[in-house]
């Protein structure tokens, strides 16, 4: 028994004991513990196996930088992989397992790979598993993945709620340590709206880990901030991404800490999208490990983490401790250990002397200080049992029996967010770390994140940064309060010791713990020519684990710089990328799941379709009735019945989704002439015309019927899916190319509901519903519009047809859409009126050879390819016209629209089927594809539309569609399967 809980002290609540399990064993902890601190209190320091060598690993840090203690939390649908035990708040009933302990934590086969570790050097994936090639997918990779393991994703749907919010702040402060709190206070007192986020449950940052805290100041500051209406405090919230224009993303863990006790209906996690006028980065610093043989043994920990465990959580990770430090900070840990009752056997300090106040205090307490020494090796299996200490520059090593080694290789400011914001880093030669250099956004760094590690300096910087941020956000004229009095110890300069000399040959010295990358891997990579830090990273995988190299990056590039003889700044860093710590997919999805995956649009007649049992098809965001099955009909039977009814009697379609644009102004006719390939200037008032639009490249873009309501007033319809982009296209031309044209456009898509009834009985229904309207051929000819009253409702009635049958499209204001539909259904009842869906509509229009933009066209098809030269004006100019003069648009072998009749009438070709002349050829030449294909009840056979190279010259020929298992023969015909009177063409 080495790790233990202190009887008093710390910030845990001893009155609230909690039970949890780790690796199947039950443990106890207290409210306020993290999973890591509770494990240490139970002397369960061993928390996993390493990624490659399966070496035993223990808790190493106390925060986000933890590389070893990766947990699989929970079970079943709520299980979550790769949680850092150091950041998991303990709750009653928590269950955790090591993510990487195959086949078990205590004893595993994988450790054998440690004996064969010559195989696993830098680039081992590339070198070892190259041959035979087929083995990679089937043998090597699955085996490696199983052994390496990175936790298990749940297979079930996530039962929890997640949501998102979008907020704006004058000042966003990232980090709630002393500098962040000072900044928030100063900015808030100046009157700015302040949002301060910290990843921990409790704000205070490093103050929570220190013995000599500013407890009074912390309490007073938090109380003041909580009382201010312009301040939002966000504990348990990680600022994980920093994007352009001071746009930042935060992940708030709202109820994770409650486990099963989380209230229902409250989102588990919330993603914050924040736009901040000013940002203060007070993200603190991470301590760096020291690189020596066996530096990964469980029981080797970061010194600052040891102090945190003792002071904040009242747990002592070991009883016999050695401290190995390159700076005065390690002495603070030695003093903390001594105060907690652990035996501090020595402070090993490679500096020739230790002149600061803290070493003096340690010396005064009788702690042995070994200046000019280093720990060259640590040994032990599942727990550290001793370290070897040797004088730098030679000399025999002496062993020290111990169960805890606290190490400090100096501190690296957490510059992740700064770097994500495109700020440039600067290497500080005195402090041996990267600090924020050139700032590129409205932002400032403060405290340890800025390289100001001493508390007094951090507070002063925080207050100044907050006041300046507020001023720059428009809240000047306020003088920041004086920072509290702090008695920082005098410190001697730290030493840079990137790799302990004399450790070679004593065993593996790890740099990246999570990805098992050693110092010799890095040197080997450099010798092999991977001298760029970006290459080194990818070749050795250093810094590429889920911890993103928080403890390893600086050490790795320092070792690389040493191996290549360049300075550290010349070696450079790799890119910091969001997220700072992993973000759940649930939070990124938010509420955009299930029915909310995409907005759902419905027509005013939708409730009727639902009641009628329609099956819906998604057309863009619209739900359109696809077909209306009756009495157990399948889709084919329903579509057959619906399509037949339109040709023989009467069908009705909800066409409300068509795009509609009101075009008004003295230049409206001229404008339409330029937009459509055909002319509209001569269109008479009250007349309708089908029009085709091309983009400037001459490719078909949209189509629809446009009606002249008055001399200067048109009503345009577009395809359902094209409504928005057509309006944008028209506005673009009006606003940017032809601003002199007097035309106004207004979207009226949803102003009008459209009920389209078609078939031989259509006229009868209109006569009944609109007795005052003359419906005869002469008074109301094809392609005209009348305003009138239908079923008592003011309406526009269009005589147009997309089916080839007599057909009326009645438009009424959409609040009357359902009333109109019901009236049409009632009037049509005696004619057996049949509501039909989009599928029957497709069959009917395809029988007639009418195209659908987006089905027969794909942005590479011209009107001429479709055989629609009749609609392309030779007299006037229009968008796309000039492109028809390009050689490519007049090639004889362009794909052209044809009809297909399969040799076997029962055959229905699959849409998208490739078409060939010769199926025996190799390689087979594709000459076209099927664009639409249906079974027609009116033709009594399958038929299709297709695009075929030079297709119009091949009418009558047989073409082949090679399908899985068979090749279908089809005859090429003209793309119209009905005669002029709408009767089926046979043969």
């Amino acid at each position, binding site marked *: 028994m080495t790790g233990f809980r202190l009887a008093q002290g710390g910030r845990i609540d001893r009155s609230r004991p909690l039970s949890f399990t780790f690796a199947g064993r039950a443990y106890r902890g207290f409210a306020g513990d993290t999973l890591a601190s509770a494990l240490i209190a139970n002397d369960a320091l061993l928390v996993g196996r390493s990624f490659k060598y399966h070496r035993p690993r223990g808790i190493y840090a106390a925060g986000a930088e933890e590389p070893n203690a990766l947990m699989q939390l929970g079970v079943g649908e709520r299980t979550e992989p790769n949680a850092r035990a150091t950041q998991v708040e303990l709750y009653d009933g928590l269950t955790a397992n090591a993510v990487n302990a195959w086949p078990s934590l205590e004893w595993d086969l994988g450790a054998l790979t440690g004996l064969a570790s010559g195989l696993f050097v830098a680039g081992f994936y590339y070198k070892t598993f190259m041959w035979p090639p087929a083995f990679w997918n089937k043998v090597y990779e699955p085996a490696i993945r199983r052994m390496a393991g990175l936790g298990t994703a749940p297979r079930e749907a996530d039962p929890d709620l997640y949501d998102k919010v979008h907020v704006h702040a004058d000042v966003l402060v990232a980090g709630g340590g002393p500098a962040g709190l000072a900044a928030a206070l100063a900015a808030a007192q100046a009157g700015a709206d302040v949002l301060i986020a910290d990843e921990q449950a409790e704000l205070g940052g490093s103050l929570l880990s220190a013995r000599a805290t500013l407890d009074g100041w912390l309490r007073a500051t938090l109380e003041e901030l909580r009382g201010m209406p312009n301040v939002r405090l966000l504990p348990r919230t990680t600022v994980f991404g920093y994007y352009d224009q001071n746009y930042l993303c935060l992940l708030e863990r709202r109820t994770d800490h409650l486990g099963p006790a989380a209230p229902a209906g409250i989102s588990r996690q919330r993603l914050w999208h924040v736009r901040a006028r000013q940002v203060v980065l007070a993200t603190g610093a991470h301590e760096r490990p020291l690189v020596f043989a066996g530096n990964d043994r469980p029981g080797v920990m970061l010194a600052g983490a040891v102090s945190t465990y003792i002071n904040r959580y009242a747990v002592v990770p070991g009883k016999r401790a050695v401290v190995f430090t390159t700076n005065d900070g390690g002495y603070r840990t030695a003093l903390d250990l001594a105060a907690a009752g652990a035996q501090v056997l020595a402070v090993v300090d490679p500096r020739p002397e230790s002149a600061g106040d803290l070493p003096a205090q340690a010396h005064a307490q009788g702690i042995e200080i070994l200046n000019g020494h280093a720990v060259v090796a640590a040994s032990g299996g599942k727990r550290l049992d001793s370290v070897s200490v040797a004088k730098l520059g030679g000399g025999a090593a002496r062993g020290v029996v111990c169960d805890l080694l606290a190490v400090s290789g100096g501190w690296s400011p957490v510059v992740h967010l700064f770097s994500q914001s495109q700020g440039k880093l600067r290497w500080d030669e005195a402090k041996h770390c990267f600090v924020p250099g050139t700032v590129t956004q409205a932002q400032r760094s403060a405290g340890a994140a800025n390289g100001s590690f001493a508390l007094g300096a951090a507070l002063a910087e925080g207050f100044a940064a907050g006041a300046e941020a507020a001023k720059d956000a428009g809240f000047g004229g306020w003088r920041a309060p004086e920072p509290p009095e702090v008695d920082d110890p005098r410190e001697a300069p730290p030493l840079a010791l990137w790799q302990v000399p004399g450790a070679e040959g004593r065993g593996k010295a790890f740099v990246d713990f999570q990805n098992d990358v050693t110092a010799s891997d890095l040197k080997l990579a450099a010798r092999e020519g991977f001298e760029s830090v970006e290459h080194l990273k990818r070749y050795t995988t250093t810094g590429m684990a889920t911890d993103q190299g928080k403890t390893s990056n600086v050490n790795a590039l320092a070792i690389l710089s040493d191996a290549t003889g360049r300075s550290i700044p010349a070696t450079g860093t790799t890119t910091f990328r969001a997220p700072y710590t992993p973000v759940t997919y649930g939070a990124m999805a938010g509420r955009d799941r299930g029915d909310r995956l995409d907005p759902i649009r419905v027509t005013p007649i939708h409730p009727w379709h639902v009641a009628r049992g329609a099956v819906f098809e998604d057309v863009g965001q619209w739900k359109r009735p696809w077909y209306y099955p009756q009495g157990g009909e399948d889709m084919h039977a329903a579509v057959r019945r619906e399509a037949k009814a339109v040709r023989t009697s009467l069908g009705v379609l909800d066409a409300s989704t068509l795009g509609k644009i009101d075009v008004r102004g003295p230049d409206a006719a001229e404008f339409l002439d330029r937009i459509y390939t055909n002319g509209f200037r001569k269109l008479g008032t009250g007349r309708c015309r089908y029009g085709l639009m091309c983009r400037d490249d001459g490719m078909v873009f949209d189509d629809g019927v446009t009606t002249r309501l008055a001399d200067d007033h048109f009503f345009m319809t577009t395809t359902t899916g094209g409504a928005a982009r057509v309006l944008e296209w028209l506005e673009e031309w009006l606003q940017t190319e032809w601003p002199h044209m007097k035309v106004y456009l207004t979207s009226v898509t*949803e102003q009008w509901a459209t009920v389209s009834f078609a078939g031989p009985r259509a006229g009868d229904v209109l006569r009944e519903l609109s007795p005052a309207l003359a419906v005869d051929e002469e008074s109301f000819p094809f392609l005209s519009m009348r305003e009138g009253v239908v079923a008592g409702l003011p309406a526009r009635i269009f005589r147009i047809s997309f089916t080839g049958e007599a057909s009326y499209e009645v438009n009424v204001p959409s609040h009357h859409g359902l009333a109109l539909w019901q009236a049409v259904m009632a009037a049509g009842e005696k004619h057996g009126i049949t509501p039909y869906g989009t599928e029957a509509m497709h069959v009917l229009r395809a029988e007639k050879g009418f195209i659908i933009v987006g089905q027969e066209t794909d942005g590479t098809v011209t009107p001429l390819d479709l055989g629609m030269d009749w609609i392309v004006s030779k007299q006037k100019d229009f968008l796309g016209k000039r492109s028809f003069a390009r050689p490519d648009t007049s090639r004889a072998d362009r794909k052209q629209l044809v009809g297909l009749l399969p040799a076997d009438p029962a055959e229905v070709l699959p849409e998208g089927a490739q078409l060939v002349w010769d199926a025996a050829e190799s390689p087979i030449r594709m000459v076209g594809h099927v664009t639409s294909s249906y079974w027609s009840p009116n033709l009594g056979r399958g038929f299709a539309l297709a695009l075929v190279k030079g297709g119009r010259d091949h009418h009558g020929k047989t073409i082949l569609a090679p399908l899985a298992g068979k090749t279908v023969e089809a005859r090429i015909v003209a793309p119209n399967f009905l005669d002029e009177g709408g009767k089926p063409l046979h043969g």
Partner: protein
Amino acid sequence: MADATLFARRRSPLQDHGAALSRGAVSGPRGVTLTEIPHLAQITLRGDPGNTDFLAAVRSALGLDLPLKANTVAAAGDVSALWLGPDEWLIAGAPDSEADLTARLNAALKDQHVSVVDVTANRTVLELAGPSARAVLEKACGLDLRPREFKAGQCAQTNLARTVGILEMTQGGAWRIYVRNSFAVYLADWLLDAMAEYAIDAKF
């Protein structure tokens, strides 16, 4: 006044959603309510704001000065004009007044190059009110909705829960959302879902 029978035959997109809207209402200090204001008269007006004849004609027709400042609203009686673009306004009025408003505008603007289009049936209006209304809206909308930035008499066309809408803050501090009819049920359900947490009295 148009035909009362015709008005009675109107159906608003959320006509069948009343029970869901009532169920979703939250009272108390964290309260928030969502209601539909159906059939508000709406007219899209396009014209040249640099033309004083145009502005004068609109003033004579509606009794208000069209707002020329972006994203602001002018009101006179129950008629208001929302700035939607440099040459585009939404005129909103009491239910069933669209024919009257259209006629007044058309008469006053005769012979001018303008566009007066009745879009009453294009959108319905949702009203979100209560202490938590802004928090609910912040889930749906990326605009700066802080009281200092979005005040009564302001409006904006914006994305809302991945639909588009016109957002207006009323003099009473409630949010009006003009949403296309086809999206109304989706958006109402989205907002009701976002409101649900405020009904839960849980400490966490």
